[in-house]
């Protein structure tokens, strides 16, 4: 691919870089417990919790497994499990 002039880059192109591989713990969002308060979406530094039509979901393409969503979830609906090695 040709380089751009002056290394200018299209905004939002980081969606092509998947940080999910960095993760060593995987947050599981238990929809049964979830109260849809949206806090997990708020507090994720990576914007890896998305609100879909149905529910809040973790986007594992990007989630780095920091655990903030789990820690801050008032319903304790998110559980972190080690990534299988």
């Amino acid at each position, binding site marked *: 691919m040709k380089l751009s002039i002056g290394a200018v*880059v299209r905004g*939002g192109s*980081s969606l092509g870089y998947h940080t999910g591989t960095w993760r060593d713990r995987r947050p599981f969002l238990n929809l049964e417990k979830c109260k849809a308060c949206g806090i997990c979406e708020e507090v994720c*530094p*990576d914007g890896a919790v998305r609100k879909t039509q149905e529910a809040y979901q973790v986007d594992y*393409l990007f989630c*780095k497994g920091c655990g*903030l969503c789990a*820690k801050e979830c008032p319903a304790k609906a998110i559980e972190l499990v080690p990534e299988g090695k």
Partner: protein
Amino acid sequence: MGSPEKGKREELFVSGHRACPGCGMALAVRHILRATGRQVIVVTPTGCLETFTSPYGYSPWRVPWVHHLFENGPSVASGIAAALRMQKRDHIRVLVIAGDGATFDIGFGALSGMLERGEDVLYICVDNGAYMNTGGQRSAATPLYASTTTDPPGKLSSGKVQEKKDLPWIVAAHKVDYVATASVAFLADLRGKLKRAMEVRGPRYIQVDSPCPSGWGFASDLTLEVGRLGVNCGLIPLLEIRGGTLTRVRKITKRIPVEDYLRVQARFRHLFAPRRQQAELSRLQSLADEKIKTYGLLKG
């Protein structure tokens, strides 16, 4: 463009950036852009934020974004603001989002110049209290007694000697209309301050306490908790200063001793081990007490 709070919220700072897991700064930026909306141009000096959002080919910024150098964010922003005025595009607003090193230290000359000239720029310092991008060296924003790699504790040292440079008041002394401090741990408060700042023209300054798991030494899921402890112990007062006077403070909901805040962070470990450094701990507590008193941070 409606209020970004209502309706379909469009993410202006998207996934795929390379911040450490649990980075407070990354979270702050997501919310800063939520509050400002898309009619902004952002300048970011060299630092963590720049590094984790600038790898060639992969930008999470969905607003126009520029990184130029470490020390010239305010000046690049001034040039953009000047151009926008001449182009009659000054409904578009200019932000600087910069680390504390860029703000308190190497870029402070340029910042002071920008304030003095009265540029229409909102300057936001995402403050993690050290040069984290280069491995956690001392900055003027490093808190008293914190350990950094250039001011480490040792036989002759208990970490940083100086108190944190009081930048919000120094900026306020430049007769800046809007100055505020905020914390990533209080996101609604942060967004509110941004909105109010966006209503003002001229230079404005917001300093956002941004806990950094890698640099401060705490687990990546504790970012908000550490932020809350900082605010609740009084060391990180959340203020609004308008026209040089304190106009609003966020009251402490549940006061805690500073030790509760310090103990969870590796950068203060030397105050507790190998032996407890009581003098230092007391001085930090009285620093917090003083802030609580001066700013009236307690309820009632």
